[in-house]
């Protein structure tokens, strides 16, 4: 508080506001968590903000056994892993060429990629639908993986270039003297050094890939191909009116993976997402 040089009164006002925002920002998640542990009688009978009387897991059992949540979950995992892999494999070498190989058009190529940041998803959705339809890609993983890779490339190349610029050229030249070509220098020197950028790229994209709605909703119409967000929608549409308990537990299951990742990597997630947003 010294930075503010504020008195006791201000301190207390600050604290009250801080706590108020903690409640505001975390209450919905907290509420859905406790609501998912209520018995059907409690949900029907008690006030909606009341705490549950016991740890009742019946809702979770119902959500797991009476729906394809497990399948949705696995679909989301496959999509996330493939998309992240694709993003890193495509953007890191491209960034290496732009930042470390000397050629005339490197600036122009970067600008060309950065143009993509200004293009809204919605202005590409209709031709995508048509193309995937003709190629038979609808209801395949590729239909949600490819567009997400494509639209992430500009940002990720930008992030990688921003880091690789600062790798001293002497290091690469030393490698070259030892006889390594660009491919080996990239694989053995630059890519390992850019590990932190890779972590940022992966974390920044993981959250948005896991939560992605538009592509999945447009291209995945078969139930067995749905990812968690739209699977959750289908589940709630089916159960939502009659079974709130199962709905609450399904929501918890859907948000748990990101919460767990966030619990361990909160600093990287926050900073990665902020960095990603600021640079767009």
């Amino acid at each position, binding site marked *: 508080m010294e*930075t503010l040089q504020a008195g006791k009164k201000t301190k207390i006002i*600050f604290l009250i506001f*801080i706590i108020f*925002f*903690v409640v505001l*920002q975390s209450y*919905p*998640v907290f509420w*859905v968590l406790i609501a998912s542990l209520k018995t059907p009688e409690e949900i*029907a009978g008690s*006030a*909606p*903000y009341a705490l549950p009387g016991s740890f009742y897991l019946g809702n979770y059992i119902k959500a797991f056994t009476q729906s394809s949540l497990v399948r949705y979950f696995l679909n989301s995992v496959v999509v996330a892993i493939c998309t992240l892999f*694709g993003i890193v494999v*495509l*953007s890191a*070498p*491209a960034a290496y*060429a732009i930042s470390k190989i*000397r*050629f005339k058009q490197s600036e122009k*190529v970067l600008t060309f*990629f950065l143009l*993509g940041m*200004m*293009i*809204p*998803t919605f*202005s*590409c959705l*209709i*031709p*995508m639908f*048509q193309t995937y339809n003709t190629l038979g890609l609808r209801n395949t993983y590729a239909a949600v993986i*490819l567009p997400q890779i*494509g639209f992430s490339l500009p940002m990720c*190349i930008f992030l990688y270039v921003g880091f690789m610029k600062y790798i001293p050229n002497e290091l690469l030249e030393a490698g*070259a003297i030892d006889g390594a070509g*660009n491919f080996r220098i*990239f694989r053995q020197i630059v890519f390992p050094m850019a590990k932190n950028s890779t972590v940022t790229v992966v974390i920044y994209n993981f*959250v948005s890939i896991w*939560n992605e*709605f*538009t592509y999945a909703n447009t291209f995945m119409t078969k139930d067995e191909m749905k990812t*968690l*967000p739209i699977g*959750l*929608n289908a589940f709630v549409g089916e159960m939502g009116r009659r079974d709130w308990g199962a709905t609450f537990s399904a*929501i918890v299951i859907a*948000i748990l993976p*990101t*919460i767990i990742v*966030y619990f361990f990597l909160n600093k990287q*997630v*926050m900073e990665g*997402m*902020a960095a990603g*947003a*600021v640079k*767009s």
Partner: protein
Amino acid sequence: MKPKRKIEPWLFLLPALVVYVSIVLFPMLQTIGYSFMDWNGIGEKTFAGLKNYSRMLSDKNLRTAFLNNMFFLLLGTVFQMFMGLLMATLLSGIKKGSNLFRVLYFIPCIISSMAVCKIFEKLLSVQPLGVIPALMKLMHLKPIAFLSDFKYALTWVTLIDGYKFCGLYMVIFYAALMNVSKDTIEAAYIDGCNWIQAYFFVKLPAIKNMFFVVLVILVNGCLKGFDVSYILTGGGPGNATELVATYMYKTAFSMSNFGYGSTLAVFILIESLIAVGIVKLIQKKFSD
């Protein structure tokens, strides 16, 4: 590094370029092409000239969606900036625990809009009773089904969307506030400023540029606003929460009008380019 052969950089670039061009750039050009056609998505495309564009200019639904979107943009921007800055300011004022609070404040940002919408749908539900109507009852107010009420639906959609994202601006503003040089602030204190003066006359002007960065993100995001309106209210009741993106999506995928849908997609593209251009222009004026 000098390339051994001229082709070398292009080998590194080729995979990314192919994916980028075929997935982002080419479809965008196709959209522009389709916007001049009559096409229901299945049958033949026929050239329609400017028909779709003249329809767009007189489309009452688009006008409603656009006006809704402007409300969504204005309220959303003000709300998210205010919330983000307020939370960041509070946290920048304490030393202990600011990390923990930051983590808690950020929670809505990492949850899918689907989950956020489903949670709020239940929180706001009147039958059976959700938390918010229940609280209204406690305060002897008549519970209102906000999401199906013509008057309140758009405001709630805007606030829920803003609620989901305001943590992001908190992180950005917090980082900026912590970066303001300590010397400048100390100098202000020595000159006799109290902390409110120091905050408004030293700190805020020092992070002026951040406001524009955030403004660009917000304007860009709000013009493409889609998820919350589409999931929570489906644009309804009536078209009270219809936004340009949801209208475009429905035109193309529910009403199978791919030609006119493409025209609306072009509208979104141009609209966001213009808006960001305007913000950047204002920023230039301010920083001179």
